[in-house]
């Protein structure tokens, strides 16, 4: 909660003299800033720093487990793709950023697989509807948030299969 401190003088009265000449108030303020400085300096070399800065490339903020980052296509235990190219994710996508070109396995009992599965990451709004829509639980969103790149704006199938820190199951 934010505490509110009223600094206006009481009705019809002026500030007391020691506040009106400012000097002691300035010294009090300087004491406050010095307190912050010393506290921050003293804890800077230690583990529990009091400075609020997170030194980004070196330190990272911990995201919520529900964070929706970069997509990842999951695999079956035998290494085949879980995706059956049903296009439900593409249909659900509010920004139409998923493009799927289905193909059939040579073995008719195995059904379809996506020959091309592309996510135009520059259009994606990371809403997670594709994950919700997937009947095969084949797509998920990882914790990865650093997708800045100069070449790959459209993530293709093989990239989506391998990205993320942990290897695909």
């Amino acid at each position: 909660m934010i505490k509110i401190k009223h600094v206006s003088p009481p009705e019809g009265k002026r500030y007391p003299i020691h506040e009106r000449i400012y000097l002691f108030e300035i010294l009090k303020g300087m004491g406050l800033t010095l307190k912050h400085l010393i506290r921050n300096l003293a804890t800077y070399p230690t583990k529990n720093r009091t400075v609020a800065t997170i030194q980004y490339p070196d330190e990272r903020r911990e995201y919520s487990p529900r964070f929706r980052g970069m997509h990842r296509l999951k695999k079956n235990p035998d290494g085949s793709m879980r995706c059956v190219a049903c296009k439900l994710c593409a249909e659900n996508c509010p920004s139409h950023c998923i493009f799927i070109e289905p193909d059939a396995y040579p073995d008719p009992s195995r059904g379809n697989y996506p020959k091309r599965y592309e996510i135009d990451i520059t259009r994606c709004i990371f809403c997670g509807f594709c994950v919700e829509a997937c009947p095969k639980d084949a797509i998920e969103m990882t914790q990865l948030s650093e997708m800045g790149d100069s070449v790959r704006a459209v993530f293709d199938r093989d990239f989506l299969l391998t990205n993320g820190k942990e290897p695909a199951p």
Partner: protein
Amino acid sequence: MWIDYLVWTVQNLLFPIVVPVVLLTGVILAVWIERRGAAFIQDRVGPNRVHLFGLPNAGLMQPIADALKLLIKEEFMPERADRFLFYMAPAVSMIIAILTYMVIPFGDVLVIGKYEIPLQVADLNVGLLFIFAIASLGVYGIVLGGWAADNKYTLLGGLRSSAQMISYEIAMGLSIIGILIVFESVRLNEIVRMQGELVFGILPRWGIVVQPLGFLLFFVASLAETNRIPFDLPEAEAEIVAGYHLEYSSFKFSMFFMAEYVNMMVASGFLVSLFLGGWQIPWLPTEVLVDRVGPAVTALLQVGTFVAKLWFVMWVFVWLRWTLPRFRYDQLMGLGWRVMLPLALVNLCVTSIVPFVLGIY
């Protein structure tokens, strides 16, 4: 004899070159202290990335990197600017800032054999008046820079600066007169030497001890003269963008920037010389030191003491900057004319009367 030439060289060539170089190097340190001090006061980290040769130095090289960046920036010149004055203004600021420092002593007269080397660039017998005369010119750099750029914000900055300088110079001058009455000299080295004595046999006779109100007034006035927060109305970035140096870029801007910090160091050195005992080590007069450790070590110790005091005052400047907000313009004028000036006059009267009452004369 060759040693005569050596002494002459040190006094007349080495000091005038070394002191400005030290001042400009000091700017680097000052900027670093300002930025990292500010960061730690505000619960941040501050610039800690720039290292030289991979040596960890807590970002000490950041000001150098900034300066290099500024030097390779585009030189911008407003279309309707007064070209001559536009180029002249930063130079005026810088030259005057460095020139003011020349009479501030950083050590007692170094006596080696028959040679006497005053540890200051110019031991003028009008030292204090010289500082006032030259420092007052400093406003020209700001006003001309503000006027020459042909921009309403720079002009406002320049005007504010001149009004502020005039208002606070009066209080500053009057607060100094108390010191002149106490120490009876305008030669700065003389004033500092007098501060080595003791009052009541215990306290060093520093200006701050004999003239506490004068110290306060002088300190506030010197904050105003150096355009530091809470008196940085000439550049008030929230109101008039950047004030007088708004249209400046590249090297000309860095001249203004460095001049501001050199001015701070001059103000600190002046304050230390007048009120904080200059190069005096408390309770250790020069004669005692020379007796114990010899003249060279004495000089080193005294210069070290002076530098330490100077940087302490610089730190207080930085500290105040990140503690206080900026004054409103009417508050600034009110403080200058309705508070500082009467207080300075009171201080002057009391200082004049007290010696007679105590029967010193």
